[in-house]
């Protein structure tokens, strides 16, 4: 369990947009679910892939629960023009006016995190598992339960989106 703990925690941490408490809860839930379903592991994939699939499902469920909670308990959330986006995800009009060239490293990090959040769920998942956790496309396909071609498509779209978004930063 120690072997997978840090990596599982890292994946959950990225899923929860940096919430330490939520990441710990999701990691614990994923381990519990894995132990409860250990008899269903048939060795078709590696244990690592099987476990990360459980983890990703737990994280996706967790995010949906959080989004539902936001929708129910934050009515003003729906009143805004940007449906389905949390307050942090809404584009900041001032940010568009500012040149990316001028923003500091910290601001850029925040911008990157916001851009990742604004990606569709599957694109974001494929990008995070590849770029941040170094999984192969084959492994990601197994974890996501999708075809390799589909994963490539999600990954490429996410990368193109981020490339366009940070073109100014690159040119600076």
């Amino acid at each position, binding site marked *: *369990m*120690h072997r997978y*703990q*840090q990596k599982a*925690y*890292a994946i959950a*941490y*990225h899923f929860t947009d940096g919430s*330490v408490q939520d990441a*710990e809860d999701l*990691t*614990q839930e994923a*381990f*519990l679910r894995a*132990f*409860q379903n250990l008899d269903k592991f048939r060795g078709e994939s590696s244990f690592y892939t099987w476990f990360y699939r459980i983890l990703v499902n737990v994280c996706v469920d967790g995010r949906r629960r959080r989004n539902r909670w936001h929708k129910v308990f934050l009515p003003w959330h729906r009143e805004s023009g940007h449906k389905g986006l949390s307050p942090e995800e809404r584009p900041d009009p001032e940010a568009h006016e500012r040149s990316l060239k001028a923003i500091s490293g910290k601001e*850029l*990090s925040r911008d*990157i*995190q916001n851009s*990742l959040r604004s990606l569709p769920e599957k694109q974001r998942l494929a990008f995070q598992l*590849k*770029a*941040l956790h170094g999984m*192969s*496309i084959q492994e990601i396909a197994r974890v996501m339960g999708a075809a390799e071609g589909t994963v*490539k498509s999600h*990954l*490429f779209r996410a*990368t193109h989106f*981020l*490339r366009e978004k*940070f073109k100014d930063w*690159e040119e600076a």
Partner: protein
Amino acid sequence: MKPCPDRNDTILLAVYKELNPEQQRDWEEHKAACPGCRGEYEALLRLVGRIRESMTVPELSGQTANALLRSVKQEMRKEREKPSWWKEWLGRPNRLVPALATASIVLITFGLFGPNFTEKTSSPKPDAENEAVIKDLDVLTNLDFLEDMDTLQELLNVLDHNEPT
């Protein structure tokens, strides 16, 4: 300079180290010759590196890791010790004894006052063959009556024939 449009996927696969050896060789040759593709490849590498840097995860402390492990073990122990619902239900004498007593009373009452199945089941149902035999017997018993009917019919015919026109 812009990258070659037909090399977009190759550049991305190269950035993510997903090219097979043959594709990698081909890409290396192209990269050396094409400044546009090389520039795009390097820009993407920097971007992904920057994103990786900005998304660093705090190390899970030994204390937290152990606490996590303990809580998982505790939950597992709870799950294991929790008996299945039917075992739990049967395991309680205050539920099992009245249930068994009620079932016994119902069975005894049914046995004493219920319908007698043995009688019903011993009388066989008449089948098609038996029905035919019963019909034949009916004809035989009424044969005398049918013969009398024929005699009366003949008498009527004679009377009709002898009647003056």
